[in-house]
């Protein structure tokens, strides 16, 4: 293609670009540059008429390069590549210029400079475009199976949807039972239906589904391969019980003399050293806690082994590893509550009667430590006055900046728990704002805020002190009435902030998924692609993408599953276009590129009497490290050749020509 014919298209993006710079002037400037046959501006280049404009120009002017100066290529590169394809051009003859995110959105205070920059960027693209060439990708088949990491409501919903679509699912759960946080809740807002009643049937569905295999008490330790063909290495932690023999009868749990704080009850209850996570656990299989088991700590007891009717106890069990080959990965590891002891002014962890919202859920649950009675942890008495503190750690510069998105509705639900169990109790709700945004939430709020002896006070408590009887004394400045209120409460409930789970950081490094400023997984696009990641084949379900309540989590998980099903149903993945390519005439066979490749994709072999490098197109992921290492310029990277990058650099370094 010696005759380079470039079309330049400058988008206004409404006022986003057009309100800062004059796109017509940028197009006019581009029109004078070498090889540019036609240049235009249009109000919305990505719209149907905008796309048609380019498509018709390609045919009319016989264009063989297209430059679109608009938003980030991360947004609309595929859109405009589609235009090229429809017009019969190879999609990699497109060059995007980012004049929105990198220019008008950040330099609107200096519009002349922004326009100058836009002209520069377009000129660099024109220089670069002359060196573009056709790239043809190859297709590889996908493995029609998926790993879902995390067995909370998000992972459960995603697994069921995938499995119902005929896809083999491996559900990995770090605890011994699936169910997640939702299993710990007593009721769900705003309908007040019993959490277990709506969750446990789904847990059973998961365990009985022929397409779902649960790996409980397991974790993902490594992921290799790529979209469509991942190898996921899973560590099965030792449970000291042979689950294949165990029937879940519970005889061992019943007779075990060991005791430990019950995690499922958020430390309020007591469990045995061999235990089920909770009565409705799925799979219903026990685990030995080696820190509290008498055999592991003192070398005595072995009662569980004696009473087990099937001989399933195995003190010598060691961890095992399995490798799963899947096409897609759905991350559904949820959230964690912020460490409330960091809010030192509230005394959580120091004062027994300052509890978390999740602890109140356990107190209110029929299978909880108090069999559903709301009693003070310090003395087991019924509280007469209860304070509920919203935004405990949330929306706070010193702790967590963002909103937890369910604390308000949970607090209203907690008002119900208390008034339902203790009709005479007084409830004081300390709020910053009440954000009752979901379907039915405002009605839910109005219903309970007008209950007798329920007071909503706009303010955050100052330091909490503990009285001799375990009651809690503090001041609150009510910003609605401009009054300082002195409060004495028997129980204080903190609606805590939400953070990503601790195991997310190592996992996201394995998966190569970026995170947002709050540490949650970064979605591909906040509005259009909120359940995909920048890594193909890896999807996000639920609160790991950001705090969510149950309805939003379920919707998000179903969307992630649908997206994963679409990805797998397509049946193939395309190789990355940015592959390394060797110019065999220039290659001296020096082999410097071989150890540089992180994927072992390069080999050097004899060809026609000379040693030359060879790239495995399936293994190569297109980083370009080899091209930066090659001393002779023989190794190049598609779409980022030395010529392409340098031609851009020359213009940008020298200014608008």
């Amino acid at each position, binding site marked *: 293609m010696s005759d380079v014919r470039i079309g330049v298209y400058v988008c206004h993006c409404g006022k986003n670009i057009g309100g800062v710079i004059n796109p017509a002037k940028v197009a006019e400037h581009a029109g004078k540059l070498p090889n540019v046959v036609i240049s235009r501006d249009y109000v919305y280049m990505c719209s149907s008429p905008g796309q048609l404009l380019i498509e018709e120009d390609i045919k009319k002017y016989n264009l063989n390069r297209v430059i679109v100066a608009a938003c*980030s*290529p*991360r947004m609309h590169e595929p859109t405009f590549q589609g235009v090229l394809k429809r017009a019969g051009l190879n999609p990699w003859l497109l060059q995007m210029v*980012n004049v*929105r*995110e*990198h220019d008008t*959105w*950040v*330099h*609107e*205070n*200096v519009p002349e*400079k*922004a326009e*100058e*920059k836009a002209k*520069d*960027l377009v000129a*660099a693209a024109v220089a670069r475009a002359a060196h573009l060439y056709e790239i043809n990708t190859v297709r590889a088949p996908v493995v029609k199976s998926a790993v879902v990491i995390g067995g909370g409501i998000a992972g459960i919903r995603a697994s069921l949807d995938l499995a119902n679509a005929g896809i083999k699912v491996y559900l990995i759960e770090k605890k011994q039972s699936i169910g997640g946080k939702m299993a710990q809740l007593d009721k769900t807002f705003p309908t007040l239906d019993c959490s277990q009643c709506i969750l446990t049937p789904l847990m059973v569905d998961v365990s009985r589904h022929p397409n779902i295999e649960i790996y409980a008490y397991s974790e993902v330790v490594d992921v290799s391969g790529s979209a469509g063909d991942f190898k996921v290495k899973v560590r099965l932690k030792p449970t000291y019980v042979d689950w294949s023999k165990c029937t879940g009868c519970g005889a061992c749990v019943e007779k075990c003399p060991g005791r430990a704080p019950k995690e499922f009850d958020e430390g309020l209850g007591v469990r045995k050293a061999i235990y089920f996570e909770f009565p409705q656990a799925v799979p219903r299989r026990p685990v030995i806690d080696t820190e509290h088991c008498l055999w592991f700590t003192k070398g005595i007891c072995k009662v569980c082994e004696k009473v087990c009717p099937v001989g399933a106890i195995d003190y010598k069990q060691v961890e095992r590893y399995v490798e799963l080959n899947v096409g897609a990965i759905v991350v559904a590891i949820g959230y964690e509550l912020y460490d409330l002891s960091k809010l030192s002014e509230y005394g959580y962890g120091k004062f027994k009667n300052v509890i978390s919202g999740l602890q109140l859920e356990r107190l209110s649950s029929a299978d909880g430590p108090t069999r559903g009675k709301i009693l003070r942890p310090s003395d087991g008495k019924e509280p007469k006055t209860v304070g509920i503190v919203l935004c405990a750690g949330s929306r706070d510069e010193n702790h967590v900046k963002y909103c937890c998105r369910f604390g308000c509705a949970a607090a209203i639900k907690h008002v119900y728990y208390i008034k339902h169990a203790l009709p005479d109790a007084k409830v004081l709700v300390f709020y910053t704002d009440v954000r009752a945004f979901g379907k039915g939430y405002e009605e839910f709020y109005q219903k309970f805020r007008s209950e007798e002896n329920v007071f909503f006070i706009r303010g955050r408590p100052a330091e909490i002190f503990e009285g001799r009887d375990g009651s809690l004394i503090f001041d609150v400045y009510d910003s609605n009435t401009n009054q300082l209120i002195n409060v004495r409460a028997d129980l204080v409930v903190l609606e805590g902030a939400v953070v990503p789970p601790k195991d997310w950081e190592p996992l996201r*490094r394995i998966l*190569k998924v*970026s*995170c*947002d*400023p709050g540490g949650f997984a*970064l979605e591909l696009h906040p509005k259009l692609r909120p359940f995909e990641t*920048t*890594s193909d084949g890896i999807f996000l379900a639920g609160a790991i993408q950001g705090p969510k309540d149950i309805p939003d989590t379920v919707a998000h998980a179903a969307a992630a599953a649908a997206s994963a099903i679409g990805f797998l149903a397509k049946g193939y993945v395309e190789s990355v276009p*940015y592959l390394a390519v060797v110019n065999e005439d220039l290659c001296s066979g020096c082999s410097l590129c071989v150890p*540089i490749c*992180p*994927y072992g994709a390069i080999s050097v072999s004899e060809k026609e009497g000379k040693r030359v490098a060879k790239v495995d197109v399936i293994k190569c*992921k*297109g*980083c*370009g*490290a080899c*091209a*930066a*290492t090659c001393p002779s310029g023989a190794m190049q*990277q598609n779409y*980022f050749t*030395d010529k392409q*990058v*340098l031609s*851009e*650099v*020359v213009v*940008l*370094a*020298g*200014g608008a020509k």
Partner: protein
Amino acid sequence: MSGGEFEPRIVVFACNWCSYAGIDLAGTSRIKYPHNVRIVKVMCSGRVHPEMVLKALEEGADGVLITGCHPGDCHYISGNYKAMRRYLLLKKLLGELGLSDRVRLEWVSASEGERWARVSSDFVEHIRKLGPLRLKEVMEGE
């Protein structure tokens, strides 16, 4: 270059996965930073050939900023470490020419729009203090 204050010209290499996305985030968050920076996208900071940096300085850039994912975060496992090793060698070479202050390597993640604004502002100010490079004029003059 407008009259009055010296406006440096900065070429930036940004990796697709972290830094380019972080610079995009500065855009979507409308975080202002100096207009002097011109961004060149590469898939990985490990793709940045020393020649690209030298070419930028030779052709008129007053400074070059290479940005990549934080250590441990590279989309391609270890490209940023390769970039760092190359950068350290390049700094030695540039030191011989008295230019080592003109090139900087920074880590900017996809969530660090604010950090990008800080890093780019710092570098622009740093180069502004150093003054224009004019390597091209000098070389052509010789």
